[in-house]
């Protein structure tokens, strides 16, 4: 799980081209949107694309997957669950 968390943080920074932020500065449980990392709706779409590119996970209904985008830890749990299903 730790490796996946670290991989996702690096992926988020690279995909969203976030500047002046390193993976260790992203809290596992901090909200990705609004407060925390302060991402927006366009970033959410970019993360959906990232999941497909990195992990082959296709999200058809973003509303259904909304809880997965709560934090990096939630996203890691979602990826892990999809991998084992």
């Amino acid at each position, binding site marked *: 799980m730790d490796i996946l968390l670290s991989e996702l943080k690096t992926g988020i920074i690279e995909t*969203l*081209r*976030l*500047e*002046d*932020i390193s993976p260790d500065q992203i809290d596992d449980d901090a909200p990705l949107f609004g407060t925390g990392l*302060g991402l927006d709706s*366009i*970033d959410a*779409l*970019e993360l*959906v*694309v*990232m*999941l*497909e*590119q990195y992990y*082959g996970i*296709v999200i058809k209904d973003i509303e259904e997957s909304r809880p997965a985008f709560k934090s990096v830890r939630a996203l890691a749990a979602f990826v892990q669950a999809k991998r084992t299903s």
Partner: protein
Amino acid sequence: MDKIVITAASRVTEASVPKARLGARFGRMDLASQLALLAVESLGIDFDGRPRDRIGICLGAWAGSLSADLEFWGGRDAAGGPSPILFTYTLPSAAIGEIAIRHRLTGANLCLVGKDTVLAEASDLLRRAEVEACLCVWCNVVTPALAEMIQAPPSAHASALFLQRGGEGLRELQENDRDIETLCAAFCAQNSTS
């Protein structure tokens, strides 16, 4: 009517982009928006104390958003499709939004694609008193991929001027001032030698 005064001028190239520190979101912008934002930042204008709803933005882009359009198109076969963030920059006016957001400017704005008529349009806004001051930005971004497609030389630079009604500045805008790039290059050359 008041004279129109040029109060600041700047010119930036792609080489300035990696060194720029304009917030965490700067990296996600397309090159045209980054250059336009940097050119405005290089003017050194303090917008505090000025009515932000009376400051206009006139953006001219010779190639519009064609470079971003082409990059977006290039991603169409990638897993998950092309980048949604890049999609937001497939509008030639995207840089106006980035400038307006960063400096909280809510005045009139205008985006012109093709021939450089930025100064004429900005002068018109000022003469009609629609704005008290105006950021004029000229952005010329032709990536190597686009250059090959449209048979034009590659280019990545932006120039900016700040015009205002009345007051003091570098000099008064003249009737025959038509080309923002030439004006900015001249002011910047003067600064580097003085």
